[in-house]
């Protein structure tokens, strides 16, 4: 079957290039911006997602995992007594000042646990052994800290809140949304560093016994901890993410970016398709005169929109993926899951078809008798 849509599109190459460029720009904008956003959001929940805790007990109204408040450490005893709880431990997550060799003071986010290996924290250990942390004033520091703290080696010393710690290993992938580098140390030492957490804890990590449902166990824990909030892993991750999305305006910002990307795509595609439709009015009149219907013409415009969508998406996606290594050098993670890529593709197709529909009214009114006009 002869495709008048494809032939017309390729016949006017400049217009085709402009259309595809518009779509590709919109796709790149959405994929990169939202990918960056998702990459950033990933940092907000990376410890929640990687730890093996099924349930997190927090102080009341804790907004996200980084901004912890404290509550009595003895609460863990009540939690351990709840049916369905296999293991429950206290965990401190606290911002503390760290002194750099240069004399500068920076902030870091300290994770303090008694038994790191039981909670899969840290999950990617480059060197050192987390179980050794209990043996002295030792820390594990995440490699991402080098960007702010400068290079470090195992065996180096750093002062945290005036207390000297030896770096006994390095981790990878541990991060906070606030960009404060993550440091792992023993729970008791972390407790001892700051008055506000003496005999207190930031969280209780809970592992559910096999055969028990996390949501039901969480409900039981709520009953015995009336002054705390209790979340399953998914709930806690969602709460942490939502805090940054809503309270910081990042979500609105991202929404505007996506809206602008779609708007640019629609305007470019609609404008070029509409101009094309106007220029091909006589051809469409001929289509009608030889027996074609409005639907035949809609199909032509729709097919052109679809071609622009597919080619534009392919180029936009290729550009986005091509930019990932460059952005990675700037320590920016573009997170594009297959589901998100598929969603953007579907959105691109809908955007282009929607833009094509703006021309439908124009072509619907074409009088086939115009073919007799010279």
């Amino acid at each position, binding site marked *: 079957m002869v495709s008048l849509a494809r032939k017309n599109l390729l016949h006017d190459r400049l217009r085709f290039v402009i259309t595809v460029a518009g779509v590709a720009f919109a796709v790149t904008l959405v994929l990169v911006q939202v990918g960056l956003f998702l990459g950033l959001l990933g940092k907000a929940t990376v410890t929640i997602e990687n730890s093996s805790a099924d349930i997190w007990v927090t102080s009341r109204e804790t907004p996200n995992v980084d901004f912890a408040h404290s509550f009595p450490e003895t609460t863990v005893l009540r939690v351990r007594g709840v049916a369905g709880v296999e293991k429950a431990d206290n965990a401190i997550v606290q911002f503390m000042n760290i002194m750099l060799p240069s004399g500068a003071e920076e902030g870091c986010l300290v994770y303090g646990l008694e038994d790191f290996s039981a909670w899969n924290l840290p999950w990617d250990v480059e060197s050192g052994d987390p179980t050794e942390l209990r043996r002295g004033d030792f820390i594990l520091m995440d490699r991402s800290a080098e960007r702010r703290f400068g290079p470090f080696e195992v065996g180096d010393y750093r002062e945290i809140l005036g207390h000297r710690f030896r770096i006994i290993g390095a981790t990878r992938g541990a991060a906070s949304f606030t960009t404060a580098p993550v440091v792992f140390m023993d729970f008791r030492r972390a407790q001892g560093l700051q008055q506000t957490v003496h005999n207190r804890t930031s969280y209780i990590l809970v592992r559910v016994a096999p055969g028990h449902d996390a949501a039901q166990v969480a409900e039981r824990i709520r009953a015995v901890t009336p002054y705390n909030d209790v979340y399953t892993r998914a709930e806690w991750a969602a709460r942490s993410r939502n805090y940054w999305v809503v309270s910081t305006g990042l979500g609105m910002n991202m929404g505007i970016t996506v809206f602008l990307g779609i708007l640019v795509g629609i305007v470019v595609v609609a404008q070029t398709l509409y101009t094309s439709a106007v220029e091909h009015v006589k051809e469409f009149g001929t289509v009608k005169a030889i027996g074609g219907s409005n639907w*035949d013409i809609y199909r032509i415009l729709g097919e052109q929109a679809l071609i622009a969508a597919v080619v534009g998406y392919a180029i936009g996606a290729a550009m986005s993926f091509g930019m990932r290594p460059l952005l990675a050098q700037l320590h920016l993670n573009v997170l594009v899951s297959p589901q998100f890529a598929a969603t953007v593709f579907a959105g691109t197709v809908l955007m282009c078809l929607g833009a094509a529909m703006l021309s439908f009214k124009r072509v619907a009114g074409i009088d086939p008798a115009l073919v*007799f006009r010279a």
Partner: protein
Amino acid sequence: MNAMLAPFCCDREERERDALSPREVLAVEDVRKTFEEGSQKVEVLRGVSLAVDQGEVVALEGPSGSGKTTLLSIMGCILTPSAGRIRIAGREVSGDEAALRDVRKRSIGFVFQQYNLFPALTAQENVEYALNVKGARGRGAAAEAARVLDLVGLGDRRRFLPRDLSGGQKQRVAIARALAGSPEVLLADEPTANLDTAVGTQILELFQKLAKDENKGLVIVTHDPKVRNVADRVVGIRDGRLSDPTEH
């Protein structure tokens, strides 16, 4: 009766006889068309009757504004008449736009003054696309397109785009497109207006040959006196009524 004068002087008896003719492919009876321009009504056709047989070439002549293009549009089922009847290939034409479109697909082939070829399509594709619109697909459509292009002498120009063809060749492609799908009626609107005398004559001779060989009823709307040389009948139209063509 002078064949050139026959159409405009046919009386009711003759029309009825024509209507019963088994060779009749197109007939309009007492067709009227009124357009509304603001509060004014303009009657463009005022009771036109005309019949065309298989293999017959009818030239329709008239000055600008006489109503010949409106009549052509009505015969081609592009416009509906305000009153009167139309029969094409023995079937009464009536109904909505979809019904008219079906008649256009099945029974009418158009040839336009400006050729109206699709610039992005080759000669073969121009014809094949028209067949696609009419519902033909695949190899059948390709073979039919090749056949009609051979008929108009463009078998060796199938892969040429319209921009690479001369005016006469473009009009041949347009004729091939009109012939594709074997409609009973061909309607041509000033088909030689953009061609020089020699090429125009060749096109008219081709029209005549195809109408005879392929048994098509052919109506040519024209100002070109050369058309009279190939027409079986010349019909005049003036002020929305058929008239004596010798008066033009």
